[in-house]
């Protein structure tokens, strides 16, 4: 696929009393994994719901797969995993999946075959004839995941796909998502877990309080942020190191973890001076490495600690 699969232009959405999304523009290119990042209540789910045409923007335009905001007519080509999971509790797993498939417009027979394949792939075939309410939360989430994917959509939109999953299941889902991208599908997913996004995404957009603060490919974002980060691991005299790192002429910012630290230099290209000073102070170093900034630190730097905790009322609609 070429061109953009999802195009959001200058979109604004207001809810009673506050603006959830403000003049947001973003473009999801065809193929690959696109991360929509932001703290809780930043407007990620609102944006995704608007893309899915579940709610309509107050201003701006959204086009999906070339159509103007008509995701319902394109539902056979879009897979959607909503943030708030919903399944019919009394229905059998397989019946539920068949129904979801049919609702997306694929024939009943195909839906049955596909749901069988997917359940096997995710290792929950034994539960196909069980009622949803008998399943654990993790399994329900897998079922929901299958529901979003069994009609083989070109565009997959996942709202917080990994929240509430244990590491094992998280891994299984991640493999599926990566595999989808490998098949040339487009995956758009939202998360506030940066480590995950950093490993998976080709492109990211970070939004905070309804506004876009970062947009670009992961490489671009990191390059723009600058390569002036140093990762340190201390073996002894961490207290002396702390003194050195407190020098604002040398170090702009420290993310201190005690035995390790990630520092941002005051001026780029100055790692030598820092190393020199640390050695002079006889700090025991196990590691001194000039690194790219982690997405986590970019996120914190761009969004700011204060924005990471959203105002209470925003969470209602996010």
């Amino acid at each position, binding site marked *: 696929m070429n061109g953009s699969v999802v195009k959001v232009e200058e979109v604004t959405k207001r809810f009673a009393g506050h603006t959830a999304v403000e003049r947001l523009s973003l473009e999801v290119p065809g193929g690959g994994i696109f991360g929509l990042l932001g703290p809780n209540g930043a407007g990620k789910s609102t944006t995704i719901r608007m893309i899915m045409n579940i709610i309509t923007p107050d201003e701006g335009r959204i086009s999906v797969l070339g159509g103007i905001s008509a*995701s319902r007519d394109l*539902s056979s080509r879009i897979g959607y995993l*909503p943030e708030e999971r919903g*399944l*019919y509790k*009394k229905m059998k797993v397989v019946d539920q999946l068949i129904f979801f498939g*049919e609702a997306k417009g694929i024939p009943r027979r195909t839906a049955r075959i596909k749901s069988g394949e997917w359940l096997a792939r995710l290792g929950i075939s034994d539960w196909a004839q069980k009622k949803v309410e008998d399943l654990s939360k993790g399994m329900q989430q897998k079922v929901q995941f299958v529901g979003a994917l069994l009609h083989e959509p070109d565009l997959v939109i996942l709202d917080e796909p990994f929240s509430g999953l244990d590491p094992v299941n998280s891994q299984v889902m991640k493999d599926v998502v990566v595999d989808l991208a490998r098949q040339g599908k487009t995956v758009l997913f939202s998360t506030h877990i940066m480590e995950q996004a950093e490993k998976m995404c080709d492109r990211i957009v970070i939004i905070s309080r309804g506004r876009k603060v970062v947009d670009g490919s992961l490489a671009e974002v990191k390059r723009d942020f600058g390569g002036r980060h140093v990762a340190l691991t201390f073996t002894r005299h961490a207290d002396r190191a702390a003194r050195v790192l407190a020098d604002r002429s040398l170090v702009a910012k420290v993310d201190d973890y005690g035995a390790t630290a990630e520092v941002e230099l005051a001026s780029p290209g100055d790692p030598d001076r820092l190393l020199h000073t640390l050695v002079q102070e006889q700090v025991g170093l196990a590691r001194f490495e000039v690194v790219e900034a982690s997405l986590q630190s970019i996120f914190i730097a761009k969004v700011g600690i204060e924005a990471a905790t959203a105002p209470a009322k925003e969470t209602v609609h996010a």
Partner: protein
Amino acid sequence: MHKIWAVIRREFVERVRTRAFLLSTILFPLFMAAMVVIPGFLMSRSTGTQRLAMVDATSDQLGQRMAASLSAARIGRGEAALPRYVVTRIPAADRAIAVRDSLLPMTGRSRKLEGFEGILVVTDSTVTQGKAEYFGANVASFDDMRELEQTIRPIVIGRRLEGLGVDLDQVMKSVQGIDLVTNKVADGKLTGESGAATFALAYAMGFILYFSLLIFGTQVMNSIVEEKNNRIVEILASSLTPFQMMLGKVVGVGLVALLQIGIWAGAATFFSANQAKILGALGIASPGGMPLSFPAMGPGLLIVFLVFFSLGFLLYAAMYAAVGAMSSTTQDAGQLQMPVMMFVLVGFFSVFALIRDPNGTAAHVLSFVPMLTPFVIPMRYSISPLPMVELFTAIAVTVLGLLAVVWVAARIYRVGILSYGKKASMRDMIRWIRTA
């Protein structure tokens, strides 16, 4: 279209599979069966044949005649009918009381033991003063006593008339009453229905619609609230149009209603048609009284009823769907459904009000109020067929009303299903209808 089918099938299959559906579907016919069997069972609790001791202190063969008459009495009709009594006549001359006392210890005991269910004492004063005595365990059974009385009365009366020199047969012929048989004529043809059956039918049709709306309309409403609450509605809304979601649900639930009512009607018809056989199979004599009967429904009326039932159901269920979409909890929904309930009640009671004058002005006017038409027309049609013009006008009016309701309801639905938290106000609703 394929998608609507998927929704209809899901609604139908998932509902029919529930234990609640199974239970209510089975319980009602069981109840019907009980209605057939229990009265019969109660009436002939002494399982038919009773062993009767007759202390005969009459001096002129009256006792023999009575014994013959009692022995001839049968339970029910037909060749297989069991004798009602096995009579043991014990001539007692003037020792009636002594004989009776000697029999008492053997009376009213367990069925398995030797003895009698009851003792009938007849003397000469039975003719002169009209007195006979009965001793038994079943004296509280109104039917048993009436039966016994009716069997011996003609013998006594006959004896008195004989004494007056009057021919019994001629008297019986001359006192024969008249029995007004009502036969319904519709469209110049005999329908084979009686007046009472027609009335019952008109009432029953109104009741079925009323009942279905209360039960299944509420189901539509609550299931939408449930879908909102477990957020499944987001998945549905991203794949289906609000119209598909609503129509699928309403039709699916409507089919469940039809299936259940169909099973019930079938069971009722079966039981009423085979009442005697069922009782016979259970070893219970059919009660001599009124058999349980259901009025037959002609094909014309059946079609009219089904058409208006379907239209009425869709009309009201769409309203219930809108109410469900407006609510966040079933409690909210319970409150918001009041206006819809009012219409249902008015419709149902208009059946009662109009049944006395089904072709009056009021009936004509109410036939063309879309909310009431589904109740009024089948009732009127069952009493006397309507002119085709009137019938089709009524259908057209209801369809128009239905479209209007669905249009409004779909708009409320569209916005309502995705708004959580607060209950929608009247102002919100009007805004939704205008902007959706």
